[in-house]
């Protein structure tokens, strides 16, 4: 485990955005009712300012201070950016808020030529980015965390946790300040003090947290690392000697990485459903471009074609700056994909449609390319809907719809349906009859023929207040006007209810027939 602690994280973030440092920098925030110092930079630290000091007191001690209000969101997003950038070292990176990161580097260090080389690489990059930091490697998260903040940074071999921790203060065990304070009250200050104490009284007095953290730090209990991003099942990556910036190069490298992934995917009989291309810019920014597919995909050319569209869709956002020095292609969602037999016509058609859907979705967005589905509802607007075409369901519901239609002998449905029924002004000859004429979008339509009503009861069991017509029963009419236009109208509510309330019935136009 590697623990990275950015010692002056908040102040470094502010200093990075400035060309020149003027005065000692402190960051303040409201704690309770008081404005307190929450972070200081090195210069302020030398003046004796520490976090926890009241702002007024700090100003009294040193009138010339650069005081900046804290910005927790900016800190958090910068930390996440750094975490993304650190994905170059290991896929298992977790944010250790507010100012640290945890890496699981098992099995990754040798890629850099050992732990020390990895730390050296990380150090030089962080230094260049202008951060103060300390890095420690130990067998457990707790020990690494403690060493980075309180002990000797550097690499500590597994099994040496006990000696490493013994001399460190109890706060190094990631305990709540109250616990640390109450331990100090009984004279327990260092971790070494509690090593040999009987466990039962300690737990009884200070709670289970103390010993759990202690056990975790000493590798007696396992502590899982929760990575910030899910770890992709298939990953291929490539570092470049020289940064690349051209789109063609990016695509070429994508195809090459896809070729490597293909081998791994084939071995396990999987295909990619969602692919992510991560581009690491030389200045630390990370670009992530994801593309979805409508069927499990393996072919490098298909994958490349997907990213051609994705890059075309966000040409401005790619912004290579001084170039990318590393690219990673990961399959974030994989699905079993049966080995394909090529040449049977129908299958090829399905593949061609899949390719087209992927192609369009990559460029226009998967929400814009849709398929129609039927749903189990008698309410017209819910009876049919659409889903992104890339979302393949096992059943689109049309078979069930046809059975239902034949069973109940459903009357014709309009070709086009308005998502929200449009209110119209209608005049009916008899209160529960079809309208004689109606006004829709400011045009008057004379009804010459009508068919209906078809009564569709509202969903009384659900409280859909969002519907325009509420939850009332509807009487649908198919009407034809003088010029031959055919509409699907309905009156919301039953006639007998209007008699009681003396309100005029409301009419809606719901669809148009061809």
């Amino acid at each position, binding site marked *: 485990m590697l623990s990275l602690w950015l010692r002056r994280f908040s102040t470094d973030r502010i200093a990075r955005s400035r060309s020149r440092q003027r005065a000692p920098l402190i960051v303040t925030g409201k704690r309770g009712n008081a404005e307190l110092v929450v972070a200081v930079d090195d210069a302020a630290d030398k003046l004796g300012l520490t976090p926890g000091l009241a702002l007024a007191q700090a100003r009294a001690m040193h009138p010339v201070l650069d005081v900046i209000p804290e910005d927790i969101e900016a800190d958090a997003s910068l930390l996440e950016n750094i975490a993304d950038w650190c994905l170059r070292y290991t896929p298992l990176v977790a944010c250790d808020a507010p100012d640290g990161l945890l890496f699981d580097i098992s099995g990754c260090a040798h890629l850099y030529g050992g732990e020390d080389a990895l730390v050296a690489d990380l150090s030089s990059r962080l230094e260049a980015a202008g951060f103060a930091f300390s890095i420690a490697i130990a067998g457990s998260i707790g020990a690494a965390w403690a060493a980075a903040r309180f002990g000797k940074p550097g690499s500590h071999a597994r099994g040496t946790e006990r000696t490493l921790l013994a001399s460190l203060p109890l706060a190094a065990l990631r305990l709540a300040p109250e616990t640390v304070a109450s331990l100090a009250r009984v004279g327990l200050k260092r971790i070494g003090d509690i090593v040999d104490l009987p466990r039962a009284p300690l737990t009884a007095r200070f709670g289970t947290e103390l010993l759990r953290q202690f056990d975790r730090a000493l590798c007696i209990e396992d502590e899982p690392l929760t990575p910030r991003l899910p770890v992709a099942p298939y990953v291929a990556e490539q570092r470049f000697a020289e940064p690349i910036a051209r789109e063609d190069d990016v695509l070429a490298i994508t195809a090459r990485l896809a070729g490597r992934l293909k081998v791994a995917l084939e071995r396990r009989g999987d295909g990619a459903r969602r692919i992510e291309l991560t581009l690491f810019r030389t200045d630390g920014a990370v670009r992530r471009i994801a593309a979805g597919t409508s069927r499990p995909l393996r072919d490098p050319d298909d994958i490349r074609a997907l990213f051609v569209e994705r890059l075309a869709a966000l040409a401005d956002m790619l912004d290579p700056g001084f170039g990318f020095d590393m690219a990673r292609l990961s399959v974030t969602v994989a699905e079993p994909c049966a080995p394909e037999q090529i040449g049977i016509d*129908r299958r*090829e*058609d*399905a593949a*061609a*449609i899949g390719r*087209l*859907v992927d*192609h*369009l979705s990559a460029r*226009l967005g998967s929400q*814009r*390319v*849709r*398929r*129609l589905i039927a749903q189990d509802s008698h309410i*017209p607007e819910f*009876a*049919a809907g*659409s889903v992104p*075409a890339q979302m393949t369901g096992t059943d689109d519901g*049309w078979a069930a*719809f*046809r059975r239902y*239609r034949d069973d109940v*002998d*459903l*009357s*014709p*449905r*309009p*070709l*086009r*349906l*308005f*998502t929200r029924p449009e209110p119209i002004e209608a005049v009916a*000859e*008899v209160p*529960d*009859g*079809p309208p*004689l004429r109606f006004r829709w979008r400011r*045009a008057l339509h*004379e*009804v*010459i*023929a009508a*068919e*209906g*009503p078809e009564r569709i009861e509202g969903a009384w069991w659900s409280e859909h207040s969002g519907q325009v017509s509420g939850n009332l029963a509807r009487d649908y009419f*198919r009407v*034809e006007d003088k*010029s*031959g*236009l*055919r509409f699907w109208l309905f009156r919301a509510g039953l006639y007998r209810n209007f008699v009681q309330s003396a309100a005029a019935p409301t009419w809606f136009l719901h*669809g*148009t*027939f*061809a």
Partner: protein
Amino acid sequence: MRQGGFQKRPVQLASSKTYLMLEELRQRLQTLQKPPGIDDVPGLSPLGVEAIDDILGGGLARGALHEIAAASEAHMASAAGFVLGLSSPCPALCRASAPSRQDVDGRVKAAHDGRHLVWIAEDMAQSESGALYGPGFEAFGLRPERLVTVQAARKRDLLWAMEEALHCRAITAVIGEMRDGEIDSVAVRRLSLAAAESGALALLLRATPPTDASTAATRWLVGASPSFVSVIPGRERSERARNPETSTVLASGFRVPASGRPRNDIGGIGSESEHVPCFAVSLTRNRRGPTGSWILQWSDIDERFRLTTHAQPVATPLLDRPHSQVA
């Protein structure tokens, strides 16, 4: 003009060799410029109406771009229905006299399983004309599960998506629904070429009658037409026999009672009321030459267009009465 000049003065050319070369180049240019969809048609899809098919030289040319415009915004649903009728797989297969429904279904399934239809519309289309509704889609002999809909934010995206879809070999027809505005000839040409390559039907559906010049193979103006008394053989309902006094059945399945007023008829829902859309169709541009106007109806029994013989709707005069009587 330049071409004319050459023909007038061939003797002035340096040698007959140059002339021959120029002639050859000219011929090559001509073959390159030959509009797709005229001679080397990948296929025809007949409408099933002889009068129209004759004019079109056998049917609507596949692998070419056709423009279908609604007579006005309000007639968009009819135009959409006409477009679906054109892209329906059936007409090519059911030229034989009225096969039964199951029969057609079976054959269509065999021939067109797996083939898709792509409907691309601008965002505005959904709110202006409504979204395509699957259950209503089936009346046109098309299966909603074989439809891919695409929403395009801009006209540029629409044209791009149409072209991409046309390149796909598993597509029978690509329908682009455009609100208003012009479409430049380069885009039309690109679409025509893409269609010619794949042999798919490219249909451009426009919400308003276009004013721009077109290089599409055909251009249609489609509006709704009042329904007529049913004339489709096999659809002659016993309705009239049963109630000779009270009502007239429109082709749409709507009834107009003898009194001339729309009637509330709960019993009519169901088996009696099959939906037969009527279209007033005019072919305003045809690369082959002749144009014309027809009133067609879509027969949902054998899933094809039929020519309506009645020139005047039967029902209209009955209802053409002054408002004051009603109000």
